[in-house]
């Protein structure tokens, strides 16, 4: 496993983790855990196989472990969390927030598939591989996730774009 190749994957891992978790600090913690586990298991990585897909599968498994673990999620608050950089432009902010909010409403397993396809452009077979599920399941989760997101975005009354306070 090559340092430069791994370093090059970090921005993508961060993007996916951020989209998945919606929280910068938690996302970077997940990326950190992913990198640590990748090094711990680098002997298992087959040279020449897709490093990206392998890293996503590590991240997915870590998340499954985390979700299985009972207890209250705890994350530290540091100065980084106080700035909220979503996007530089302001005029499409409400729209972005709506989509982000809608994305949070999806079940984890649908969001995961949707994001791997939308953000990472992974092939369906690669998604299936990374998540350890059959391609058929990928397809049905993708279809359901997309449809749900579409309905969520259409349901909002036009003109009332305010984000629901969670």
């Amino acid at each position, binding site marked *: 496993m090559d340092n430069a190749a791994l370093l090059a994957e970090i921005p993508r891992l961060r993007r996916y983790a*951020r*989209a998945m978790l919606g929280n910068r600090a938690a996302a970077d913690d997940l990326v950190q855990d992913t990198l640590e586990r990748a090094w711990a298991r680098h002997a298992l990585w087959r040279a020449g196989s897709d490093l990206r897909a392998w890293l996503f599968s590590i991240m997915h498994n870590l998340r499954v472990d985390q979700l299985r673990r009972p207890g209250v999620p705890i994350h530290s608050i540091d100065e980084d969390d106080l700035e909220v950089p979503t996007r530089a432009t302001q005029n499409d902010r409400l729209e972005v927030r709506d989509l982000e909010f809608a994305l949070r409403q999806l079940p984890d397993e649908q969001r995961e598939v949707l994001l791997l396809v939308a953000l990472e452009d992974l*092939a369906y077979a690669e998604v299936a591989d990374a998540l350890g599920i059959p391609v058929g399941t990928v397809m049905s989760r993708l279809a359901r996730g997309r449809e749900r997101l579409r309905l969520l975005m259409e349901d909002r009354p036009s003109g009332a774009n305010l984000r629901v306070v969670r």
Partner: protein
Amino acid sequence: MTEDDLQAWVDDALPAGRRGEIDDYLAAHPEEAERVRAYQAQKQALKAMFAPVLDEPVPQRLQTLAKPPVAVDPQKRPILARWSLQRIAAGLLIAMVSGVAGWLGHAQYQSADRVAQMMPLPRQAAVAHVVFSPDVRRPVEVSADQEDQLVAWLSKRLGTPVRPPKLAALGYELIGGRLLPGNSGPVAQFMYHDASGQRLTLYVTTENTTNRDTGFRFAQEGPVNVFYWIDGKFGYALSAGIDKGELARVATAVYDQLEHK
């Protein structure tokens, strides 16, 4: 025409030739066309929304982790560079607290049916002491320079007047206090320190229902010595990692002040 075909159309993942067939189908089915175009727009919007993350500078701690850890490449990387000091400190603190808490808790967890039992006063106080007294930055919620507010707040929450005793004559100054969950409701903790930084906590509960006053009792909970006593509905416990004689001296002063309040 299957749903999978339509999804693959959105992702441009159709085998060559097949795309044209789907285009024809969509031309004949405007509702379906609208739906899959919405999916396409959704995909683009998601990409646009999270694209800025790709341009953010990668935090140092993650960059460091792109390099092999010590075990893989022992020469190049001292362990301190890979694990930030903060992480080590946090790890040690967790190890310390869980070590002490584990030690304190081991008797409690010997059998499953005892888990639900209420923690006895000295143990509660000792756990609260080991959790909060090592905290350098935030040992208390309200500090002594707002003592009036501290007294008002804790009295209100405990539903009865509580006031930190004055121990300056014994060399202990009030740092402040905090509210904690007890066995069935709120309890208060006051923290003091002496000139050397040695910390001492007074734990005050109003949960006593047995209405049996006790004299001074002493308990040793791991590294923490505790003097405790019950007075009406109040339970008091004074905890510190100092020797029994010194703690007794402070406990007597606390007791006297509380008696003559």
